[in-house]
């Protein structure tokens, strides 16, 4: 029952990450990312209860603070500091239908790749594992397809969430120190990127990745 719920939450993760990918505005991306992080917290908690790993319960608590609250708040604050700029001309390079097809293809490829893994801990959570791997590529798709540099930041956050889920699925007993290290680094990455975005806005008054193509060749 517990593992079934974990796999269902894994499926929800891919739905929410697709919503981040499809978001047209920073406001919506922030909201979708917060929801996705809440699903991640639920997954960590369920897995913790199912496997009896106390560490995962602690991860769920820290992820609530860092991913559900802190990261969205940082990005939202930066967006507000810029005066909530108009993003109507920053549509994704991919049409929504193509984005969904691409995500489906990524999930499919990851299911095939994960099928070859013989690790005992992976057996019960294979679907969720495939999805956590796919999550990674959805994040990459978000970075490559977005014209909005604020949204590119969320691509990195999705990739980091994918790693987090993989670690929880394959090594639920991992010491908290590892989780703390990963989360701290990810938070610093978001803070630094937010700061650079703010500088770009103040210096160039743009969030458009097309305006950042002067250096070529």
């Amino acid at each position: 029952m517990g593992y079934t719920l974990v796999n269902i939450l894994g499926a929800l993760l891919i739905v929410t990450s697709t919503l981040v990918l499809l978001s047209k505005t920073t406001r919506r991306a922030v909201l979708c990312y917060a929801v996705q992080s809440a699903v991640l917290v639920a997954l960590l908690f369920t897995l913790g209860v199912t496997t009896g790993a106390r560490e995962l319960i602690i991860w769920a608590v820290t992820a609530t603070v860092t991913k559900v609250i802190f990261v969205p708040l940082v990005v939202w604050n930066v967006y507000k500091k810029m005066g909530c700029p108009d993003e109507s001309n920053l549509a994704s390079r991919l049409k929504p239908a193509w984005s969904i097809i691409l995500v489906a293809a990524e999930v499919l490829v990851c299911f095939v790749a994960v099928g070859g893994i013989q690790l005992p801990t992976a057996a019960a959570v294979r679907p969720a594992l495939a999805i956590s791997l796919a999550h990674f590529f959805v994040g990459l798709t978000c970075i490559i397809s977005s014209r909005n540099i604020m949204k590119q930041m969320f691509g990195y956050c999705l990739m980091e969430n994918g790693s987090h889920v993989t670690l929880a699925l394959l090594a639920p007993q991992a010491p908290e120190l590892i989780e703390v290290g990963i989360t701290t680094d990810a938070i610093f990455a978001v803070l630094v990127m937010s700061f650079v975005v703010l500088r770009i806005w103040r210096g160039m008054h743009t969030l458009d990745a097309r305006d950042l193509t002067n250096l070529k060749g």
Partner: protein
Amino acid sequence: MNLSILLVALLASPLVFTLIMAATPQSAGRPAFAGMHMASLSIVLGLSLAVGVPALVSGQAVDACGLWLHVDALSAIFVLLIGIIGFLTGLFSLPYVRHDAEAGLMGADRVKQYYALYSLFVFTMLLAAASNNLILTWAAIEATTLSTVFLVGIYRNRDCLEASWKYAIVCTSGVAFGLFGTLLVYANAADVMANPHEAAFFTAIMPYAGQFDPMLTKIAFAFALIGFGTKAGLFPMHTWLPDAHSQAPSPVSGLLSGVLLKVAILVIIRFYMVALAAVGALFPSVLLLTVGILSVVTSAFSLVRQHDIKRKFAYHSVENVGIIAVALGIGGPLGIAAALLHCVFHGITKALLFCLSGNLLMTYGTRDLRRITGVIEVAPVTATLLTVSLFGLAGFPPLAMFVSETMTFVAGASAHLLWVVVVVALALTVVIAVIMQIISGSVLGHAPEGQAKGDVEPLALVPEFILLACIVWFGVATPTPLVAGVENSCAIVLQSDDLDALHTAPLYRAVFDSQAAAPQAADVQNG
């Protein structure tokens, strides 16, 4: 004194100086920050020699903080590279920053930021090289990006902002692949080890690597290669590199290209060791040869189009990191030795060339090679240094890179990979042609009308002469401690004392005058 304590001090000193500089008000002035900067780098140089040389020569690893820090012969090579090049490019920073400050390009706030971040950058690289913990190594590599984003963008003009954004987004997302690979190795190790709490330590997992799930290990290696290969500047993840290297201040470009790329290579070598033990040589070799050859070939042709001298040098970095990947992909003791020597030799050569690009920038006020002409008339000392170091970059004898490139070719031929040797050699002919173009078009030729004549100040030339001396010295007579360290490192990477292939390789004895002593790596068994 206890080497473990010195290792902790080596890591702590640049961090402490970063904090001191951050806490010091900018009104303290540039000389105060320059003084702290040099104190930090002098201590790092001294301690890296104190810790690195014994580890290199004796093969005895230095451990500290339990299992967390581990400097064996392999990591000692990179610790020494950080200490020596960090100090020399740091010394070059003094006249360079003074010039920029006097030219109004760097205000007091940015001078403080520059020196504080420089020490932080050195700290993060030392941590990555000395860490024995998988996750800490990843975090340190990620931290190298975060500490240098603001160095790359320090001039805050349009191009710098663009370069710093690309650097941040490409490297953080690239290194996220490295995190995924790291976690897969950790999970694999935790599954087979009796004590899962030791599953995050390289030395602890190596004896168990043979029991890892082959599929998971292959995915992990592929992810690690993409992730840390992004940081190393391997094709096709190299896109950040020409932008960041061209926009950063020249001493920082020297440190990025000369050292940071090599530290990322060290992490790839650690994952290569795991893959070798778990799935054999074929899979990692195919991946390394593929990205290596593509890096060499694409960068060789990209070089032709560049007119910005620093972008040109940046593409040379991609090409040379490609050669390192090719050498690793060829594998065996000879391939690994060639890769490690190329890390050192290219590191020194490229640090020198980026410092010299700083000379040109200070003299001509531009990076555009079409406007940099007649250097021999304008700044004869810089012209001489530039010519010799460009010959070094082209791999001409008797300079250092000739030795490592020749070793790579011998390794390829010995492994019956002649087609690899031919492809790389053909690409290198394009590289040589481009280098000759710089010499004939910029070093020679006539100086622009009205160009003031005179070399940069002596303080800028001192570190350059030292780096040039190293290039000549290492090419003519590679120091015995380095040869011993490379041999000990080969034993660590291959987890074997059998280095006959290295000692019996054509030219090896003649070049290195090695007594072919059995490697003394006491920790071969535990990685």
